[in-house]
Structures are given as structure tokens and as C-alpha cells.
């Protein structure tokens, strides 16, 4: 129940509602007339009961909150640009502030242009390098593959020679031992002194023979070469 007090005149809304729903509603109710003079003066000024601060009210109404600078922040470039951005011309900001000085903008743009070509060149050269590396390695491997057969043959020959030499040495030893044994007979032990002395003698003889044989082979080769030369010339 609100009892509204307007310039001293009190209303009684309860009574009215009772009259609305009463059974004896045939009786006319006189309209409630107030003094007109008083009415005009009471409603002429709208009363702002919002309790808002002026800057917030301005924002609500779409205006720049502060028409005058209240703080150092309102004088900064950033704030004024933002004010222009949000409120437009109403913000009373000269749009000149929004633009940078000419020199700064030009510098950054030129830098970028240069780098695009450089970037393309760099990527191209990087790719070429990688490809080159791969190709170089492949060539290297190909060359080695050509020699592979030869290397295999060499290795087999080496092994065969080693084995042959070992076998030859064993054979030679056996032969000499046999000869000595033939000389002494089976009664004498191989590790006996006399046996060993004989063995040494035999080895020396054998070596001498081999050297002679080698020398002869060399001489024959030389002779063959000379003959070839003379025949060809």
C-alpha cells in the first residue's frame, strides 16, 4: 500500500479499489481533480534518481564520458584515439591524433618488401642445398658401387693367398720333417736336438733354392720384356 504524498495532497488508493469491486457500483464516483497550477510545477523538471555519475550517464547516452580532461589519462594519445573510435565526432577529438607521423609508417612497409624476395631466395637456396647433399651422397655411393666388384675380388684373393701361404708353409714343414725322418729313421723324436739341427739345415737349403727360383723367374720376365720391346720397335 503506497500512500503517495504529492504537494501535501494525500491519496487513498485502497478506497478506490474497494469501490471498484463493490456490489453497489452504480453510484458514480467523482473523478479526483488536483489543482492544475500545482501539477505543472511539480512535473516540469524531470528528476534524475539514477544515482549515476555524470561520466557514466554520458556513456549511457552514447556521449564521450568526459567532455573536459579530469585526469592525465584523458590527455594521452591512446585515450583520445579510443574516444574518437567509440564516440566519433561527438567526442570533440581531432582525428589528426589518430594518425602516426609519416616517417614511421613508410619505414616499416619498405622493410617488408625487401624481405619477401629474400625469403623466397633463401627457401630456394635451402632446397637446392638439400638436393645437392642428397645427390652428392648418391654419386659417392654409385662410385663406390662400381668398385665393389673389384674390392670383393681383391678380398677373396687376399684370403685365398693367406690360406695358400699358410698351407704352403705347413706343407714345406711337413716335407722337411719327412726328409729328416727319412734320414734318421722313425726312432728319433722330432723334438730331438739332432733332428732340429738337421731341420734348420734343410730349411736354409730350401730358402736358398726358393730365392734362386725367384731370381730366375724375374730374369725370365725381364728377358721377355726386352724381347717384346725389340720386336715391337
Amino acid at each position, binding site marked *: 500500500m503506497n500512500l503517495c504524498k504529492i504537494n501535501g495532497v494525500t491519496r487513498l488508493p485502497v478506497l478506490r479499489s474497494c469501490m471498484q469491486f463493490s456490489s453497489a457500483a452504480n453510484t458514480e464516483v467523482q473523478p479526483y481533480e488536483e489543482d492544475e497550477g500545482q501539477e505543472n510545477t511539480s512535473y516540469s523538471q524531470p528528476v534524475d534518481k539514477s544515482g549515476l555519475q555524470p561520466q557514466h550517464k554520458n556513456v549511457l547516452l*552514447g556521449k564521450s564520458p568526459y567532455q573536459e580532461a579530469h585526469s592525465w589519462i584523458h590527455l594521452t594519445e591512446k585515450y*583520445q*584515439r*579510443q*574516444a*574518437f*573510435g*567509440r*564516440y*566519433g*565526432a*561527438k567526442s570533440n*577529438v581531432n*582525428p589528426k591524433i*589518430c*594518425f*602516426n607521423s609519416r616517417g614511421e*609508417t613508410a619505414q616499416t*612497409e619498405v622493410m*617488408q618488401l625487401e*624481405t*619477401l624476395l629474400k*625469403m*623466397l631466395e*633463401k*627457401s630456394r637456396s635451402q632446397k637446392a642445398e638439400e638436393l645437392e647433399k642428397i645427390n652428392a651422397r648418391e654419386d659417392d655411393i654409385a662410385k663406390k658401387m662400381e668398385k665393389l666388384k673389384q674390392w670383393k675380388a681383391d678380398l677373396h684373393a687376399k684370403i685365398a693367398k693367406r690360406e695358400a701361404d699358410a698351407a704352403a708353409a705347413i706343407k714345406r714343414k711337413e716335407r722337411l720333417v719327412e726328409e729328416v725322418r727319412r734320414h734318421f729313421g722313425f726312432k728319433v723324436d722330432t723334438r730331438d736336438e739332432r733332428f732340429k739341427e738337421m731341420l734348420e739345415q734343410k730349411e736354409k737349403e730350401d730358402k736358398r733354392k726358393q730365392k734362386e727360383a725367384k731370381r730366375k723367374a724375374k730374369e725370365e720376365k725381364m728377358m721377355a720384356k726386352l724381347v717384346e720391346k725389340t720386336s715391337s720397335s
Partner: protein
Amino acid sequence: MAHLRETSDKALKLLRTLPRVQIGNLRPNPNSKQNDKRGRAQHGGDKHGAGNKGSGQRQNFMRLGYETGNQPFYMRFPYEPYYKGHHMKRQYPPISLLQLQVLIDTNRIDTSQPIDISTLCNSGLLKLKPAELEYGFQLTDDGLDNFKAKINIEVQHASEAVIAAVEKNGGVIRTSYYDPRSLHMLANPQKWFQKGVPIPSRMLPPQDAVDYYTNPKNRGYLANPEEISKERLVLAQKYGYELPKIENDSAYEMLTTTKDPRQIFYGLEPGWLINIVDKTIIKRKLE
């Protein structure tokens, strides 16, 4: 897949000879039955599963992972760079062609205008977060077969099949790069215009992205347009559709609208100061 056929043949052969499936022929599901081994009585008792003498029975085991002196596996790798640099990698949140078709069919996107990041973000259903290293959208091939819209779209990544799908319907697709500042502007243009700063120019892509955006196969925005048209033909031949003639299209102008590599918004050039409240454009005086 020859070995699969052999195993299935084997299985079928087995089935012919095996007996009928009965409870007595079945084995319980793995890990469904627990071993009721008590530490007492004949089977669980006596040595309690620890054997005889030795370190086993005396419960003196080597520490887990020990490999009797050599460098154990868990000590061999001092560093595994699984996530090295992941926080700096560019991300491209996906939009499927299905999603795009749905957006178009439900009038969320206007196909009579070129489509770019702004269009997609302004639909309200897609959001880009440049601060989380999202460098734009990628168009994925989900719903590729049912895509039937003719659009001029600009994304940041698209695969070959997606490009084919768009071009098959008479549309135009381009991939372009936007630097983070431009992305912020596009994702929320209103917020950016409220700053009251003239539009800056777009930056070029970084070194590792230059190759992608200069490649006509990807319809890169830095690629040669002639080569792009050649690649269009190549793609049409590869995927087996007739290349639509955009020149004869009524929307030719709209379809061939492209942005300059330095441009961020359609129709707005760098250096212009836009005011949304006053609906004005303020340009610098040419001196």
C-alpha cells in the same frame, strides 16, 4: 591383403570340423576369472610361490628396470623432445565443408559476398582465438561429396580435394596469411575499430610459410594468377569434372574479388581511419 583371405579361409575350414559351441567348449572371457590361490594348503602353501633359496625366496630382488649393470632402458634417453616448440606452432582450427554448407543453407553466411575470417566469425557460430596461436581457419574435407555452394572463400589452409570441391561448383578458393594483429582485427572488427587507429597493412608470412602461400597448387595469395588458373585445369582433369567457366558467370565480379596482399578488409585500404559511429572514412592527405 592375401594373408587375411588365407586366415578367413582357414577359419571357415576349421568351423566345418569343430564341434558345436557349447558351454563345455567355451573359455571364459580374458580377465573375468580370478585365480583363487590362497596362501595355505597344498597348492598355495609351503614355499608360497617363492621357490628355493636364492634372491627369489629371500625377496631380495633387483630394483625395477635394473639390467644387471648396463645402462638401463629408462636411463638411456636423457631427453625426448615430444613437445618441443609446440607452444609456438601455428594452429588452424578446422571448418568442414559440411559445416560450411549448413551455414550457407541456414542463411548464416551470405554467398553473394566474398567469405573470409570476418564473415565466418560474424556468423556467431565460429570463433577464432588469435591469442592461442590460431592463425585462421582450415577447410577440411568432411562433407566434400555433398558440397554444392558456389562461393568465393578465403581460408588459411585447404587440401587439394577441398580446393577441387569448391572449384567444381564454380567457386573460388584462396589461401592467405594473416599476421596476429590482422587476425585480432578480423576476429572482432568492432572492437578493433573502437581503438580509433587507422587500418595497418598486413604483414607477409614468415619464412616457413612463404613456400605454402606462393604455391599455386595451394591457391596461395602470393602465387602467380596465371599458374593458379593452370592448376585449376590440372585439378579438374585429376578429379574428373568439367571446369566451370567463371567468366560467363553472373557473379563473375564477386567471385574474382581478391584482397591485396597488404589488405586486411574487403574494400578498405591500409591507412584509412574508419569510424563506425559516424560511418565515415578519414584518409590521409596526399602531399
